[in-house]
């Protein structure tokens, strides 16, 4: 059963068509890659799915509960509460907050202790605080960040910041996780570790993952299926092996042969 289905999705900015007529469908617990040359519309596609941009045309429906829900007219925060989380290509942590606070903000939806009760510091406030902090530490531990819980996010190393973005996204308890170039700027060693981590969290948290990535070793290693975009259009779809030998993909990446 598909958890996410996209039909004829199109986004135009003035005269420029950034995403054109895309159809795709993602199955539950899949790990799907989304690749394409720069400017192919990958990030725009993520922005459409998370409600940051409104599509010009097309349908998006999410199927996590009893019946599919259309995401077209939902606000970003509503989509987030429905179970879609993402990370950013250029890291966008809350830099002047601690690592712990970044994760706690991810848990915003789960905290049901209101403002008045929090100011009055009733017992349920402390209980909730303790519970969320404990959960946050457990999440951080998976990514080897538990010792940095009280450090400001901006003081983390680059690789740690990338990992914290994933932790923060997981804190929202998503069923669908979009990773926008998680390996960008990482060295080969870090990339390998990241690959393992993505697999691990996908199984542990019962996630469906969509990955945008330029690092082909990561994509080819971790993804079960790959979609290729070029100029906003869907160019190809298939297993890593099929994509590797697809002539259209080779042309898009390597250029036309003379």
């Amino acid at each position, binding site marked *: 059963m598909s958890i996410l289905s996209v039909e004829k999705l199109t986004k135009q900015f003035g005269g420029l068509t950034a995403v054109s007529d895309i159809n795709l469908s993602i199955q539950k617990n899949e790990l799907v890659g989304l690749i394409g040359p720069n400017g192919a519309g990958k990030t725009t596609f993520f922005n459409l799915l998370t409600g*940051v941009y409104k599509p010009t045309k097309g349908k998006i429906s999410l199927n996590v509960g009893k019946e599919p829900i259309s995401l077209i007219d939902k606000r970003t925060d509503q989509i*987030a509460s429905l179970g879609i989380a993402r990370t950013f290509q250029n890291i966008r942590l809350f830099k*002047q907050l601690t690592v712990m*606070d970044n994760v706690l*903000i991810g848990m*915003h939806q789960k905290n049901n202790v*209101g*403002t008045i009760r*929090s*100011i009055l510091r009733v017992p349920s406030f402390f209980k909730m605080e303790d519970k969320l902090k404990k959960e946050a530490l457990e999440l951080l531990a998976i990514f080897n960040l538990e010792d940095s819980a009280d450090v400001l996010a901006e003081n983390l190393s680059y690789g740690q910041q990338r990992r914290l973005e994933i932790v923060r996204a997981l804190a929202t308890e998503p069923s669908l996780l979009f990773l926008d170039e998680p390996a960008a700027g990482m060295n080969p060693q870090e990339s390998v570790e990241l690959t393992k981590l993505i697999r691990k969290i996908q199984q542990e948290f019962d996630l469906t993952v969509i990955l945008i990535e330029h690092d082909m070793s990561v994509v080819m290693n971790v993804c079960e299926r790959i979609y290729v975009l070029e100029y906003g259009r869907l160019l190809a779809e298939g297993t890593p092996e099929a994509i590797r030998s697809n002539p259209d993909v080779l042309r898009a990446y390597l250029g036309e042969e003379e």
Partner: protein
Amino acid sequence: MSSFMQQVINGLSLGSIYALIALGYTMVYGIIKLINFAHGEIFMIGAFVGYATIQFLNVGLIPALLVAMTASALLGVIIERVAYRPLRKSSRITALITAIGVSYLIQNGMIQWVGPNVRSFPQVLTNTRYDLGFFSISRIQLIIFGTSIILMIALQLIVHQTKMGKAMRAVSMDPEAAQLMGINVNHVISFTFMLGSALAGAGGVLVGLFYNTINPTMGFLPGLKAFIAAVLGGIGIIPGAMLGGILIGLTETMVVAYGNSLLRDAVVFVILILILLVRPSGILGKTTKEKV
């Protein structure tokens, strides 16, 4: 010495009122990067609501404060909803000009409605002075300190301890990322206006009590000075607004006491010019270097 201490006390009480108003400027700026020039008018409305509550309902100071804060909070939320939210995606200058427009609208609306004349604020309490040797402190000053301190502690608790406070800080740093965490940015912005406006409303009642008079243009100058206080402390920084308010209040009182009382406003504006020249990010602000 004793007269100096006395001036310090007077400066602190004026300063804590500026601080209450400055907090609203700074919080709104922190979250939507808008200098809400209608904020001084919210302060004025707070004073008038407090006046009306005491005058017509015959209640004491605390109920009047609460009613004034609620009314101001509501007004702040309405202003944001009607005037600023539709402009959220336009340029900052558009919203700024709108804010000035809203300020004049409320000010002149009040002149039209209640008349331009000065009213005397009903004295709900007998203003005894307590002599403490070096200096004396009046009951009203004690009430100003008490109210300001309680409200500032409550604000700190809200910002640092509650889920809403965390959401406020998240939105101020990166609204888009905050949304993706499931935070409803519109709610957070409304909440910020509510908090800031409630504090300004409380400030209005305290000023009415302190100076005995209120009028529809009373928001203009304290509004500007509180704005300067917010810039002095570092706009967008909550402790900065408190510090800036106290410093402006002290400076103004000292100028009146030891200099020329006609210069009191001029000196405050000179501070604004100096801080913008020397340290535009304010006393507590981090100087951010432009990255090339």
